[in-house]
């Protein structure tokens, strides 16, 4: 038996994230995986002590480039909870629209990287081509491609007119059409199934025990989605959590594929029912109290703990990101698989290390 240690990351072409995995390999079979973290720690939680609570919205948006809107929504909901602010219905619907657009582009991005992890470059390009249109919608409505910067405490800062609503619906029809064309490839292609089915299987009991979140949890057959708690306008929209039962990498891909359709459907619903009225309510005074807020991100459940002591700045903001919850799953899944399957399994949990390290 030839044992060697392969450093997988922090700078590795397959892994777009600065995560290091020290893989002990015996004849291309992994026997042990040790994650090493801390390459992109930026101290964003500590910034809460010298930025006021309005400025923190922009800071939380930059915890992660891909989940930006949802970080800001979670933080603002936390503060609105502490300060007892009622968000106008139109703002709640706009938050849903931007949140779901973000989920859409995040899942397309992930699927492209996933295709790249098993060496399917043309599929990667195809998926990113679709994603570009979603980014265009984000830019045209929020003003930025990725980090939208439209969420504010008490509401949102931008409105959309009827013409834009129509335009978004048209563009989304195109996106849905393209995704429908690519769907059979992801679902049935022989080489993809060969590389993903039965790889990194997580049973529902293991998923519960290890505290998996998001698509990883739902792919193991547990229908748990924080959007079911009905935050923002989700309580008024119709959707069911997408689940799969196999618990392998292919099932995780299928769950995300289902969530792409679900997101498009949710945006259409929100655009149809978009109520009129204000988009922002006034914020008076300073926050005092503490709260725990949960939001469903593309990668799973994010938890914000916010404590305010009545000052201009907050005394504590603690962020538990979905990747943090899924790292134990990853460490559990890696031993026993082949080296060639490592990128597939690592990407199947959709690691976002800049989220994780804040």
């Amino acid at each position: 038996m030839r044992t060697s240690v392969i450093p997988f990351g922090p700078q590795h072409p397959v892994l777009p994230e600065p995560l290091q995995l020290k893989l002990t390999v015996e004849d291309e079979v992994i026997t042990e995986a040790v994650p090493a973290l801390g390459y992109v720690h930026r101290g964003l939680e500590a910034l809460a002590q010298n930025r006021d609570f309005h400025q923190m919205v922009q800071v939380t948006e930059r915890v992660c480039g891909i989940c930006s809107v949802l970080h800001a929504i979670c933080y603002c909901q936390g503060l609105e909870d502490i300060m007892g602010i009622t968000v106008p219905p139109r703002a709640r619907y706009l938050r849903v629209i931007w949140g779901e657009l973000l989920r859409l582009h995040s899942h397309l991005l992930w699927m492209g990287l996933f295709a790249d992890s098993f060496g399917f470059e043309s599929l990667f390009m195809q998926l990113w081509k679709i994603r570009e249109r979603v980014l265009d919608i984000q830019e045209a409505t929020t003003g930025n491609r990725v980090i939208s910067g439209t969420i504010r405490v008490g509401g949102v800062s931008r409105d959309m007119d009827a013409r834009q609503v129509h335009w978004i619906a048209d563009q989304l029809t195109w996106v849905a059409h393209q995704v429908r064309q690519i769907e059979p490839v992801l679902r049935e292609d022989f080489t993809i199934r060969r590389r993903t089915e039965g790889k990194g299987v997580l049973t529902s009991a293991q998923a519960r025990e290890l505290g998996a979140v998001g698509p990883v949890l739902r792919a193991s057959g547990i229908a748990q989605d924080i959007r079911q708690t009905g935050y923002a306008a989700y309580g008024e929209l119709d959707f069911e959590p997408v689940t799969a039962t196999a618990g392998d990498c292919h099932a995780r891909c299928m769950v995300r594929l289902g969530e792409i359709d679900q997101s498009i459907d949710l945006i259409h619903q929100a655009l149809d029912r978009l109520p009129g009225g204000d988009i922002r309510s006034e914020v008076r005074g300073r926050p005092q109290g503490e709260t725990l807020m949960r939001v469903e991100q593309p990668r799973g459940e994010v938890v914000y703990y916010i404590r305010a002591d009545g000052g201009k700045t907050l005394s504590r903001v603690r962020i538990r990101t979905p990747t943090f919850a899924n790292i134990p799953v990853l460490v559990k899944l890696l031993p026993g698989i082949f080296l060639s399957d490592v990128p597939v399994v690592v990407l199947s949990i959709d690691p976002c290390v800049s989220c994780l390290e804040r």
Partner: protein
Amino acid sequence: MFKMTPQILRNLISGPATRAYPRQIRPPFPATRGRLVNDIAQCNFCGACAVKCPSVCIEVDRHLSRWSFAPHICVCCGVCVEICPRHCLRQEPATGPPAAQKEMVALDAKS
């Protein structure tokens, strides 16, 4: 394998979806938040933008009547534009050109 073949053949026929970037530039969306500009004639140097800026990229000196701004530190969030009492700040729909060095913009009131 055969599921992907129609896709890639369609790509071959319909031509590239990418743009030859420096020669062909997509016009920016009107809503795009790009580079910050200050109509200095209207500015009263109240300093509200400097206080509210999350990335601390604006400095206002009331005595010198000087408004200075670091475009490469700006995160284009648009908070300053929203709170400006004189409405003299606005954002162009395009970001500034790339630069080799971080620049500073300093605007003085016409005396």
